[in-house]
């Protein structure tokens, strides 16, 4: 090849790279919207999934919380300014539960997609892998937010009512907590090779995270029974996500919970991106997507 030809090839590559950058923003937007739309559409058309996602927290609210109401006395703790019913206390925890299960459900669908092959179509499209994972995560979070608002509407009719502006302020909190829990699911999915292994996630991740948190009992109550459990609950990122939601629902900003949840999201997401990187992550060891 002559020098001239080499230069032409080089210029062609640079030109293509430049053109690619010019159109890329629109490309990114369309791809992200496409991924989110697909996830939302699949969710609303899968009626069984929609209903089962709601039944779980509603059973906890109507059966478990109603039964516990008499057994558990709650002192006045922020953000609450008066004595509250146990159902009121548990509602943010159940919102967290919806997002926790949804995050894990999304990761389950990633493992399924990987086994079935449809994940490949996503991974071979001409966009950076971190962006595709982030889009997938946003899509899953969007689905969880949809579930949460339907749950809140039902809870409203059950007389569990937050201040009206709380329903607005809880949205950014739900976005962050949903992203954090979804990123955790994404990270786990990069480790799981087969769908069968997912049962382990239920036993070793979802249940411990939920029960060792402030979703069901306030921290001071946990401290009364066990110091170890108290510390585990305190440093559990799920507890911080629940507190972020709890405060936001009453129009208050919990700075510690916000920072903790944000940091947890960044850590989980970064690890998931590494996990899905064909050069570095678990994919190399597994020899698959």
């Amino acid at each position, binding site marked *: 090849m002559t020098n001239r030809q080499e230069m032409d*090839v080089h210029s062609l*590559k640079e030109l*293509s790279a430049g053109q690619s950058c010019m159109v890329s923003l629109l490309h990114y937007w369309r791809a992200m919207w496409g991924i989110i*739309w697909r996830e939302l559409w699949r969710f609303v058309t899968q009626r069984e999934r929609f209903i089962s996602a709601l039944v779980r927290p509603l059973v906890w609210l109507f059966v478990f919380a109603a039964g516990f109401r008499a057994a558990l006395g709650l002192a006045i703790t922020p953000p609450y300014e008066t004595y509250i019913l146990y159902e009121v206390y548990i509602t943010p925890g159940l919102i967290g539960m919806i997002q926790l299960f949804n995050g894990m459900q999304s990761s389950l669908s990633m493992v399924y997609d990987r086994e079935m092959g*449809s994940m*490949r179509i996503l991974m*071979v499209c*001409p966009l950076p892998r971190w962006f595709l994972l982030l889009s997938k995560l946003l899509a899953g979070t969007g689905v969880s937010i949809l579930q949460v608002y339907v749950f809140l509407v039902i809870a409203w009719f059950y007389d569990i009512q937050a201040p009206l502006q709380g329903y607005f302020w809880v949205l950014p909190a739900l976005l962050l907590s949903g992203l954090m829990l979804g990123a955790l699911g994404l990270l786990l999915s990069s480790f799981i090779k087969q769908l069968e292994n997912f049962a382990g996630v239920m036993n070793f991740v979802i249940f411990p995270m939920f029960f060792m948190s402030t979703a069901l009992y306030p921290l001071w109550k946990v401290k009364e029974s066990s110091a170890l459990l108290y510390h585990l609950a305190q440093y559990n990122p799920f507890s911080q996500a629940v507190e972020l939601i709890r405060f936001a629902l009453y129009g208050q900003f919990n700075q510690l919970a916000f920072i903790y949840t944000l940091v947890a999201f960044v850590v989980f997401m970064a690890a998931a991106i590494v996990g899905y990187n064909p050069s570095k992550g678990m994919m190399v060891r597994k020899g698959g997507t």
Partner: protein
Amino acid sequence: MSSSIALSVEELSFSYGGKKALSQVSFKIQSGECTILLGPNGAGKSTLFSLITRLYDTREGRIELCGFDVKRQTCLALERLGVVFQQTTLDMDLTVLQNLRYHTALHGMGRKQAEQRIQQELERLAMYDRRFEKVRQLNGGHRRRVEIARALLHKPSVLLLDEPTVGLDVPSRLAIVEYVHRLAAEEKLAVLWASHLIDEIYPDDHLIILHEGQVKANGMVDDVLKASHAPTIKDAFYALTQGDQI
């Protein structure tokens, strides 16, 4: 570098742990050429495809798509690539149209352009009238047609097909083989077709025989036959692979 070289694979090796899947694989594919990658199960065809599509990392060797290094210029390279995987990758619960729209979104196409391209590609494969049907309702042959249409929506320069006719009845198989060969000639598309079926090879195809991760033959069908002193591709394959079953 010739401008017509669409896919270049140079000294590519890959191992799963200690097991070598590909060893020093090199070949080039030109635009307008249909290249058949012939090899038995376990020859390394799917591994090679996973490396070209960057699902696996290239640790030894180099792959270029239209002059772009797949490892370093991944997005630019993948823009020029259309893929039909061995397993179906369509979403069964979405319609044909929804599946194709999803693909156009991933490739950043606008709505108008997307609709136009979807119509063109589906009409060419006589599937446009079935665009509102869920993929689950289609038979295997029709699903494959949709996957080929999808792989072509963004007008790639290189089309990879990983055993796309597996499990199809004879008429569906022949129709797809004929269609892809026509595409290569008419659209100046570089096609790499992994197969273990000899009757999918046309006399003027480029043939690569892959066996135990190594390229055993690489050239036009006639040249491979001459070099291996064999009257048929089947004989050439047996001679080159010491009698392994395809």
